[in-house]
Structures are given as structure tokens and as C-alpha cells.
């Protein structure tokens, strides 16, 4: 499955990219799987994604609070730290 990934705030800076399109392995089915897969993509990814609880996820511009949610049908998945607007 091909999907667009977006990064914001210090996660974007640490990974040195705003977005990328990746081909996900077939074993990556849920948000939890995706976070684990990200950890395998090099040192910076491992550093960022080891803080599982800090990294927030949105699928198709909607918050996903449950790591068991399936990513099937997602065209855009965003990763970001807790929000500090307002």
C-alpha cells in the first residue's frame, strides 16, 4: 500500500522532511504497526518514534487515539507532537 506521510513541528525537524510517499509492507495493518515500522527506518526515526505516547497520529486529517485502528484506505497519515495552539 502506498501512502503519503506528513510530519509537523519538532518531528518534521528531526526527520528533516515535511512529507514523503512510502510503500508500506503488507504486515503493517494498524496504527501501532505503522509506528513500529517507522522505528526500523534508521536512527533518527528510531529516536523519534520510540516516544510512542508523545507522537500523535491523524489519518485523513482526523485524530486517531486508538493504536489498534486499521490504516486500510488511508491516503494521508500525519505524525506530530501534542498540540500547542490557542
Amino acid at each position, binding site marked *: 500500500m502506498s501512502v503519503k506521510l506528513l510530519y*509537523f*513541528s519538532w518531528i518534521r525537524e528531526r526527520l528533516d522532511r515535511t512529507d514523503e510517499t512510502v510503500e508500506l509492507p503488507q504486515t503493517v495493518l494498524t496504527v501501532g504497526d505503522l509506528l513500529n515500522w517507522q522505528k526500523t527506518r534508521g536512527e533518527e526515526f528510531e529516536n523519534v518514534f520510540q516516544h510512542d505516547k508523545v507522537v500523535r497520529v491523524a489519518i485523513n486529517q*482526523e485524530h486517531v487515539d486508538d493504536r489498534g485502528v486499521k490504516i486500510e484506505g488511508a491516503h*494521508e497519515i500525519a505524525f*506530530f*507532537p501534542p*498540540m*500547542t*495552539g*490557542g
Partner: protein
Amino acid sequence: MTITPDIRIQAEDFSIEAEVKKLTEDHFDIGAVVTFSGLCRDEGGTLNALELEHYPAMAETEIRRIAETAIKRWSLQGITAIHRYGKIAPGENIVLVIAASPHRQAAFDGANFLMDFLKTRAPFWKKEHGKDGTIGNWVDAKDADDDALKRWE
């Protein structure tokens, strides 16, 4: 009648007076208007500016979702929410929320609810630019902001 919230994400400043007028003009059933505006602090004189990053495709949708919940829950007659992005200097506006209802309590609660959820659910992030030239401190999220949501359960 369905009330549609007026949600805007913009770099430009806004006028509180003009926005209140826009929301209330020709609506003679409105009895209460609560406005909240959030400004950039100078953090004891050390801050030169805040830089607000956002997720454009999601920011408006998410605030609209929260505003629609508030309209339903307190039977509000209108909501305006404006959030700025980009570089903002101390003293400048960051965010505006206006809630209108027949009586004051619903307008107070609606505006309060919207701000609480906006702080923790709207995809915006603040970065500090210091007076000493330092750039790069991302503002930490506060546990108190998460705790504030619980009172609306």
C-alpha cells in the same frame, strides 16, 4: 435552522469589533456575546516572536468539528473562531473565539469549551524566537490543558 460556525485560519490579524458585528448584525434574538482572544506574551521580555506552524488540511476541519459540538450542546446562535499562523510578535492576537446565545451562561460555556478543545485538538504548534537571537524552542504542551477537557465530560 442549522447554525454554521464561521471558522478561519489565516496569517492576518483580525478585528474583534468587526467580527462581533458580523456575527450579531441583524440577529435580534441574540442576548449574549462572549469573546475570548488569546495574545502572544513576551515571557518576561525574553521573547521576540512566536512562530505558529499548522496542518492546513486539518486545522479548519478540526476546529469546525469542535464548534459544531458546542453549537449543539449549548444551542448557540453562532460561533466565530479565527486562528492565526506564521510569525506573531508579543502583544499581537493569536486566536479569537466568539459565542452568541440568548442568555449568558451558554455563551460563556460554549466559548470556554471551544478554547479547551482547540488547545489540545487543533493542529497548531508554537516555536519560540528569543530576543537573544535563539530560534528553536518548541513550546511544550501542558498537562493542565489535557486536564481541562475532563470537566466537559
